[in-house]
């Protein structure tokens, strides 16, 4: 069988440059999960219908399953792990935990990323704006209520007490 063409990409992920050898048709999702160790980015449907794979690409929330790895070459990607650590969690992560916005947790990584994208652009979102911002992220467990409340709380915390 003819060997398929591959290319090397360099992607800036959560603050560091990482390299991977990728196929032309390979998605960013696949490369993040299978080649770069970023299993926090989830595959829920593989075709942009669920948002579980949401990452920030140059600051904008996108479906990693709808982005070719090659399209992320030289670009900046942030996943949920890049937002906070156990020692210094992001206020969004903290609010999600404290407000019970996480049940099975499978949607959480993508959900938090979409929320981060929102708050970076709009630090004082209305409830409607929050609902709209996460309307590409499906959740089967929570009914979204506590997720919306957690985002509201995190927005408030960031406005009143922003950490560097």
């Amino acid at each position, binding site marked *: 069988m003819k060997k*398929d*063409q591959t*290319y090397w990409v360099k992607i800036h992920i959560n603050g560091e440059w990482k390299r991977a050898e990728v*196929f*032309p*048709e390979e*998605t960013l999702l696949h490369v993040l999960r299978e080649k770069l160790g970023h299993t926090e980015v989830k595959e829920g449907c*593989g*075709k*942009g*219908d669920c*948002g579980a794979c*949401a990452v920030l*690409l140059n600051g*904008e*929330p*996108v*479906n990693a*399953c*709808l*982005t*070719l790895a*090659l*399209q992320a*070459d030289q670009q900046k990607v942030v996943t949920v792990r890049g937002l906070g650590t156990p020692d210094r969690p992001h206020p969004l992560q903290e609010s999600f935990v404290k407000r019970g916005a996480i049940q099975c947790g499978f949607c959480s990584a993508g959900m938090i990323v*979409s929320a981060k*994208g929102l708050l970076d652009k709009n630090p004082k979102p209305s409830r409607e704006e929050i609902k*709209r*911002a*996460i*309307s*590409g*992220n499906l959740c089967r467990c929570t009914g979204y209520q506590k997720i919306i409340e957690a985002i509201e709380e995190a927005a408030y915390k960031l406005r009143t007490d922003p950490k560097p």
Partner: protein
Amino acid sequence: MDTYRPQHLKSALQLLKAGKGRYLMIAGGTNMIPDLRAKAIRPKAFIDISRFKNLSYIKEEKKEIRIGALTTISKLADSNTIQLFALPLSQAAQQLGNPLVRNRATIGGNLADASPAADTAPPLLALEARVVMMREGAKERSVAIDQFFLGPNQTRLRRDEMIKEIIFSKVSPHAKTAYFKLGLRNSMAISIISIALLLEMEGTFCKKARIGLGAVAPFPMRAYRTEEMLTEEEVTERLLEACGQTVREEIDPISDIRASKEYRTEMVSVLLKRLIRQIAFQQPV
């Protein structure tokens, strides 16, 4: 399969020509990647044009708006210019897909993919936009958008041609517009039907009407006969009933998993009347 990442537009066009239809241009990829996954397309190579910044613009000129083909749907949705001068397009952009998809999908891709339910098409039809196309070794050409679509996923684009920009006249301050997308849920919904309406009114007298419809025919369409019925007429309930009937006759919907053709037909009629009322009589939708 292989990929090309040309640095310049000229190289991209040369590659497109050389590919003879086997090389497919990819920008946002929000339709193309699922198609690839479903094996609905099997290109020999991609030509990745996603990073051509010079094709992403919203330019306001004296009388016209020009939108670069690679302008993302989010940019359209967030643009004050579009909201001011092409409100139905702004509204459609806000409801296309979902926010994650909107950050990648482009107006050029939406039109070139040419789904009968393409969300940006009905507003562009009502705005009487022109699609400017380019290819290697020939001058740019443009075609009116109501001539652009030929069938489901079929357009006038030659296989070595790509969309450069979309141009339309700014909506006059005398014109009123409306837009409605009917879907089975409030986000991530493929249109059951969509309507974009532009009316130039003098009180309740309609001087000009443009109606763009989506998901009710093999391609997005204008409802010419219904437009004519409204032109130079006083808008009355009786006229509305007649319009509601005529538009049913103009469309050619199918039944699919989302809706039956009977329902689509009924909805175009009902919602068109509603939108006209909204504009003519200042009624809330």
